[in-house]
């Protein structure tokens, strides 16, 4: 007990240093907790609810944002024929009205294969036939009703089919990858849920069912999970999968997912992109945790070493009066208990906060409190071990064999000096790595935001079907949007939002639409004043017109034009020209080349685009109206009166300015930057403090030396030189290590943070920042040395 109080007094003796060490340990503790709590859920390649260990591949299509999107059954079925695929299960989603307990509500229905359900082992259903007569509901969904639903019947409005509510979905099935589940249903009911409206009269039921069946096969609502036979890998499957679906059968449709490349993911994974993003952060955390751990242990080790060095006589005395090594170990442990307790408590509080945040922001991770408690225990044990080891190790080196041997103590000062050198080097290195990472991310972010070449104040409004009106319309009357445009020259139209267009794609080519090297571009219909209003200048040529399209620079590169001018008036073949309302019989020409615009977010700026005149469109489900902020009010009134006069079932919705939307698209990047910058500041502040204390402690130990030097005629300048030069070696080692690390890991940093870029200039900035920290750390001991008289330095007061 006395030892604990003594340890507390030791902590108070050097408050700031203790504070630095404690906050370092607390941060380490928090990071350890988060890393270890996240690890199982991030590293597992299958959702936690699949037990089967067999080899799976998840298949979808690659969306414009390079993420997995659902494919269609028709397309996934093709996989079944491939060698190596044992079977394929489907998982899909559809929103549809259901009637239960006298109430009709729209529910998100997850459609699942019986095979897949069996693999999950979570919902007990004896066989497929049985499962086809049942539904499982989520507890969230059930909360809308006043009484327990299991045992009741639920009717699918669309197919008028009544199914028994067999039970609740387990918590782990509430979020299935990219979808939220209200109701779990056999995939076989899907075609019944497809809604088909024919304007005039009823079709024959048999024909209607045929159409519904065909539509169900073509709708992009499904992810496939292929089970591989042994000896096959994902690569084999990917190599044999056709990029496009063969159109066979008499009743076939062409849907826009047919143009998208297939997406493969090893293992069972429904939101691989989201997890991949997390994986990056996990790596970042892991690297941080490791460097924090090394940093802290070095700090602790050097601190304890110099403390013990001062106490050598005391410890030897204790040994000489009969204390055993274990007694001294116990004493040191007790002295450090305070440190462990305070920093552990701080760390756990921090970790709990982080954990709570993570759980709220990323519910798909399924973090359980069991894991959390385990992680907390683990972190505390680790921190305790770290502190104790750092207290005991120096003891062994100081008290090794001969108790009162002078040259031994010389050796331990040597060890101490090496330790402090390594510590200083490492602190500089950590600060350097962290600062250059932060600089890299920050500058990439800055560049991507400052390089936006359009007027970001432009406001966007969308004219869409009025969701609240009972009578739903699906196509906007052309007269309406024609009128919109002719009303005001300050108004431009596009088929969809500029920043996040739900764009269709098509192959384009200079020679023939069917050539194999045709390039995929995104299509967008815009009015001819669209570019002018956005303030984008043409690299060459003029705006869109009848049978004349504009492509962006990325598309021009794809088509292989040596310069923008070369593209003007070239004939272009567009496979899906009809999607743009263009006449496929007549030739289509390139009217102009435009800079790359930040469609799909700033980071996807290089998406190849093709723009055509919106006037050519025969119909569209919605349009986006772009307007100068100054004209906004007039537009609002004008459009509203237009809508009321023409067709009251359309409404005008505000989508925000281009700037707001860009910010929204960049939010993850912003968060990452914020986290990186905060951590960088914290880490480099910690490293700076440790550096400062280490240099101070070293200088203190060297006081006698400085005194002697002054006695033999060294001036203040010489002392400063000595102080600096002892650091210079550490500095040079650290900076060269930093340069090597950055060079080696630059590629992985890029993978880790898409938004990372490093340049020589940044490295220089980082080195300058480090030098400032170093010089600042030198100044205090220097002034102290000069302030004291040489006589007292030598006496060692």
């Amino acid at each position, binding site marked *: 007990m006395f030892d604990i109080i003594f340890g507390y007094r030791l902590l108070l003796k050097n408050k700031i240093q203790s504070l630095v060490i404690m906050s370092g340990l607390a941060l380490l503790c928090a990071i350890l907790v988060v890393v270890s709590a996240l690890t199982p859920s991030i590293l597992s390649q299958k959702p936690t609810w699949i037990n089967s260990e067999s080899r799976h591949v998840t298949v979808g299509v690659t969306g414009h944002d390079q993420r997995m999107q659902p494919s269609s059954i028709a397309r996934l079925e093709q996989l079944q024929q491939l060698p190596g695929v044992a079977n394929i299960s489907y998982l899909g989603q559809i929103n549809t009205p259901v009637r239960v307990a006298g109430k009709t509500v729209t529910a998100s229905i997850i459609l699942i294969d019986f095979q897949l359900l069996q693999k999950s082992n979570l919902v007990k259903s004896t066989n497929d036939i049985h499962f086809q007569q049942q539904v499982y509901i989520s507890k969230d969904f059930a909360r809308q009703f006043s009484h327990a639903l299991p045992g009741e019947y639920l009717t699918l409005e669309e197919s008028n089919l009544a199914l028994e509510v067999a039970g609740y979905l387990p918590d782990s099935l509430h979020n299935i990858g990219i979808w939220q589940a209200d109701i779990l249903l056999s995939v076989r009911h899907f075609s019944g849920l497809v809604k088909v409206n024919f304007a005039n009269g009823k079709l024959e039921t048999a024909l209607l069912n045929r159409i519904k069946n065909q539509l169900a096969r073509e709708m992009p609502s499904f992810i496939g999970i292929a089970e591989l036979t042994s000896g096959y890998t994902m690569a084999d499957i990917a190599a044999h999968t056709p990029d496009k679906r063969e159109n066979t059968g008499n009743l076939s449709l062409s849907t826009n997912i047919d143009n998208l490349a297939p997406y493969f993911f090893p293992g069972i994974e429904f939101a691989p992109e989201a997890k991949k993003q997390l994986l990056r952060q996990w790596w970042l955390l892991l690297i941080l945790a490791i460097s924090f751990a090394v940093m802290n242990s070095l700090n602790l080790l050097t601190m304890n070493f110099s403390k013990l060095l001062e106490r050598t006589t005391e410890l030897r005395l204790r040994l000489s009066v009969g204390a055993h090594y274990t007694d001294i170990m116990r004493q040191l442990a007790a002295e450090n208990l305070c440190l462990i307790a305070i920093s552990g408590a701080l760390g756990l509080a921090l970790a709990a906060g982080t954990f709570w945040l993570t759980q709220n922001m990323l519910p798909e991770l399924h973090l359980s409190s069991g894991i959390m408690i385990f992680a907390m225990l683990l972190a505390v044990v680790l921190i305790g071990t770290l502190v104790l080891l750092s207290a005991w190790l120096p003891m062994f080196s100081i008290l090794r064999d001969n108790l009162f041997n002078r040259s031994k103590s*010389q050796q331990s000062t040597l060890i101490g000096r090496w330790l402090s050198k390594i510590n200083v080097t490492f602190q500089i290195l950590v600060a350097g790595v962290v600062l250059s990472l932060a600089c890299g991310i920050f500058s990439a972010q800055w560049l991507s935001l400052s390089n936006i070449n359009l007027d970001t104040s432009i406001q966007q409004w969308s004219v869409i079907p009025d969701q609240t009106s009972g009578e739903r319309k699906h196509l906007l009357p052309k007269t309406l949007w024609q009128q919109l445009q002719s009303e005001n020259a300050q108004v431009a139209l596009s088929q969809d939002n500029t920043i996040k267009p739900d764009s269709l794609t098509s192959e384009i080519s200079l020679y023939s639409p069917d050539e194999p090297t045709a390039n995929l571009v995104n299509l967008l219909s815009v009015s001819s004043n669209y570019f002018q209003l956005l303030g984008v200048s043409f690299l060459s040529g003029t705006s869109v017109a009848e049978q004349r399209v504009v492509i962006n620079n990325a598309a021009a590169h794809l088509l292989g034009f040596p310069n923008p001018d070369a593209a003007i008036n070239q004939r272009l073949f567009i496979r899906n020209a009809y999607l743009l309302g263009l006449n496929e019989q007549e030739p289509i020409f390139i009217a102009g080349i435009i800079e790359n615009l930040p469609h799909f977010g700033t980071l996807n700026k290089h998406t190849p685009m093709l723009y055509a005149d919106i006037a050519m469109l025969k119909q569209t489900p919605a349009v986006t109206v772009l307007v100068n902020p100054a004209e906004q009010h007039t537009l609002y009134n004008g459009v509203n009166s237009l809508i009321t006069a023409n067709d009251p079932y359309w409404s005008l919705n505000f989508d925000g300015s281009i700037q707001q939307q860009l910010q929204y698209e960049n939010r993850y990047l912003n968060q990452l930057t914020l986290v990186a910058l905060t951590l960088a500041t914290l880490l480099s502040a910690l490293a700076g403090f440790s550096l400062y204390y280490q240099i101070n402690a070293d200088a203190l130990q060297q006081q006698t030396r400085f005194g002697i030097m*002054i006695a033999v005629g060294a001036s203040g300048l010489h002392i400063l030189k000595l102080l600096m030069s002892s650091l210079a070696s550490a500095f040079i080692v650290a900076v060269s290590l930093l340069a090597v690390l950055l060079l080696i890991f630059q590629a992985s940093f890029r993978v880790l943070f898409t938004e990372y870029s490093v340049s020589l200039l940044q490295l220089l900035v980082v080195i300058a920042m480090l030098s400032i920290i170093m010089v600042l750390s030198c100044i205090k001991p220097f002034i102290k040395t000069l302030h004291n008289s040489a006589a*007292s330095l030598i006496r060692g007061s």
Partner: protein
Amino acid sequence: MADYLLKTENLSKVFGKGSAQTYALNDISLHVETGDFIAITGPSGCGKSTLLSILGLLDNPTSGDYRLCNRNIRQLSNYQKSHLRNRSLGWIFQNFNLICDMTVLENVMLPLRYTKGISAAQMKKSAIECLQQVSIADKANSLPSELSGGQQQRVAIARAIVQHPDILLADEPTGSLDSENAEQIFQLLQKLNIGGMTILLVTHARELAERCNRIIRMKDGQLCDTEPMSVAPDHNSLYRA
């Protein structure tokens, strides 16, 4: 009137502030001529080391004047003081104060490093010469921790004389040594004095003090009297200040 090598007037040194103030030195006036071999004695805590530190420019007086080599030290810049310490003063301490991670040779070369325009070879040559003078040249490449106390003190003396200073300041150089080693060190100092070096020696050993050509006795920070040396009278007057 003769130029004194070193001269103080009403030199005082106060440590601490307020009620904790102690006069370590009180009104010390003395002077030293070239070739003097002076012993400073007195009870422990009387201010001998403090006086020596001030004379050796390791500390500044609180008040009073101090002229060294005809220069008022108050008017010297830090840089000039360093220069004086380097060229004109040599220090020997009771606990040797060798730098433990430098070899004997490097320790002796240390003062030369703070002098401009000396090549490494020259440095080494002068250092070896000095080590030979104190008969310890064979240990040139050892570390101080590998030497006995007497040997370490010889190294310290070699370091003190490597620049051929005008004055050698020795604060109890024999205090940590047995009588045999102490005698050897004292003889070394006598040899240097005969060679023309001025020496100020703080010592508790009466028999050593009496072999110097002048003794300054101190008590409570003041000079009490000076005693004529029992041996070897020389050209200097007995009493000054």
